[in-house]
């Protein structure tokens, strides 16, 4: 009896010790402790120049009250506001759709069951690099490199959309049943036949849903690019209203418009997720 249970570690009083050697627990505790320490450190390192909390908090509360309770337009008309929202949606749509087309081909190269290991690895490394540069930096870099205008914004947003979608698409391609690919190869189908007759039909709905999810992200990115990189659209109006006119009523109305669209897009994508990805967590 003793010999068979010798691998069970016991404490001095004979209780089975369930915590010893549990690496998962150690790593979790380590992560939580180090993050908490870094947080405390952060509050010491912050630059508090010009901060007066006693004034800033009531002021912000007042601003928020004006924003959300008395929204109004003063510097432009309703039709103009809707036109600006249209520009933001347009930028997001272009970046998404062009990104999806390019990402489709790159994902074919990145999927390990459809490509050779070297090409796959190379594509993955390039994609990881592109993802690491924040979108706003891409947009600003393209703004000098390609000249200001919607081209720079779309190109900059395109880069991140491609990186995101390549990852999602290639994972979808890798889940295609091996048997189907084998059967087609056995009939003498070439690579392109396999893609159009096996891979594309069985993953098409996934690809569409992922593209829509990216569109949802790209909408808020487009708002951000308008504000930070001068890409135009409702984000730029928001930046002007708060930074130049200090018009909290207008800021409020623009915020409501963005909020409304974002909620609509979110509800649509939640429905899509429920329909097509029942069990998986989506990042």
């Amino acid at each position, binding site marked *: 009896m003793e010999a068979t249970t010798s691998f069970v570690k016991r404490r001095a009083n004979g209780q089975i010790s369930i915590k010893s050697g549990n690496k*998962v627990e150690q790593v*979790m505790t380590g992560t939580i402790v180090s*993050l908490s320490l*870094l947080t405390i*450190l*952060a*509050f010491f*390192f*912050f*630059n*508090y*120049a*010009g*901060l007066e909390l006693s*004034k*800033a908090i009531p*002021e912000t509360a007042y601003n928020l009250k004006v*924003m959300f309770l008395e929204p109004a337009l003063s510097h432009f008309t309703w039709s103009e506001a809707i*036109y600006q929202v249209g*520009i933001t*949606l*347009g*930028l997001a*749509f*272009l970046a998404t*759709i*062009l990104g999806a087309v390019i990402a489709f081909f790159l994902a074919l190269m990145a999927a390990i069951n459809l490509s050779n290991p070297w090409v796959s690895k190379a594509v993955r490394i390039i994609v*990881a*690099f592109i*993802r*690491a540069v*924040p979108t*706003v*930096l891409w947009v600003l*870099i393209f703004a*000098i*490199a*390609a000249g200001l205008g*919607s*081209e720079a914004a779309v*190109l900059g947003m395109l880069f991140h959309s491609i990186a995101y979608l390549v990852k999602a698409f290639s994972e979808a391609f890798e889940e295609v049943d091996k048997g189907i690919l084998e059967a087609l190869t056995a009939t003498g189908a070439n690579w392109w036949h396999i893609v159009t007759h096996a891979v594309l039909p069985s993953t098409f709905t996934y690809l*569409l849903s992922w593209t829509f999810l990216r569109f949802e992200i790209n909408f808020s990115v487009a*708002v*951000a690019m308008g*504000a*930070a990189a001068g890409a135009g659209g409702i984000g730029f109006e*928001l*930046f002007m209203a*708060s*930074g130049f006119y*200090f018009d909290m009523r207008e*800021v409020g109305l*623009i*915020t409501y418009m*963005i*909020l409304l669209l*974002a*909620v609509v897009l*979110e509800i649509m994508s939640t429905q899509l997720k429920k329909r097509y990805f029942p069990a998986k*967590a989506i990042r």
Partner: protein
Amino acid sequence: MNEKAMRSQRKWQTIIWVAIIIVFTYLASDITNFNIIHGIATLPNAITWIFSNLYITPETLERLPKILEKLAETILMSIAATTTATVFSLFLGLMGSKTTGTSSVLGVFARLVASVARNIPVVAWALILLLSFGQNSMTGYLALFVGSLGFLTRAFIETIDEASHSAVEALRATGSTYFQIVFKAVIPQCLPQMISWILFMIETNIRSATLVGILTGTGIGYSFDLYYKTLNYNAVALVTFAIVISVIIIELMSNRIRKVIL
């Protein structure tokens, strides 16, 4: 339905989708003045420009200590915003989840807070807070905090709903109190997934911190903006590389942690 009819239905579906997408693309390029041919034509020039201007010279390396200091500020800001938001979203998540929620009013409240905080972009929060908080780390921190709060609350609600139903039922059957259920069943079961979400949020926040920094004049975003506006492209390249390297290192680290705990 026979096979032929199904095929032709499928074909029509595909054609309609493609048509809708083409129409939307046309409308979108019309409203934004985007010319795809012009876009493609500028791409080679843009890439040549990037390679001939964005390189690091020895002189710019002298600025490295200062840039690293700003980078550290940004990273710390993202971590602090995420961890403090975690504390609040944990409570909101417990309130909002169906398994652990105590009243439907609180549940709706938690979901509403999460939805508003998440769907107003971080940029809007940054601009609003900038007006009264001024140019310092606190503004960026608060903007990131609100965004993280919204996202993490939603993620936690989903995690709690998914993971812990049977364990909660079992503990309830033994007559445990609410807090015993939460601390002995819900939290231990959801912790790995929650840590994974927290790490994901930190990665996202470092990228958004750059954006918020450009708007609020703090951290690495401010350094980038400064060099960008003074046309010091070598320093711009250095800042970009510093961001890329730190983002990749943090991603690798959190992937490592995820592999162990999930």
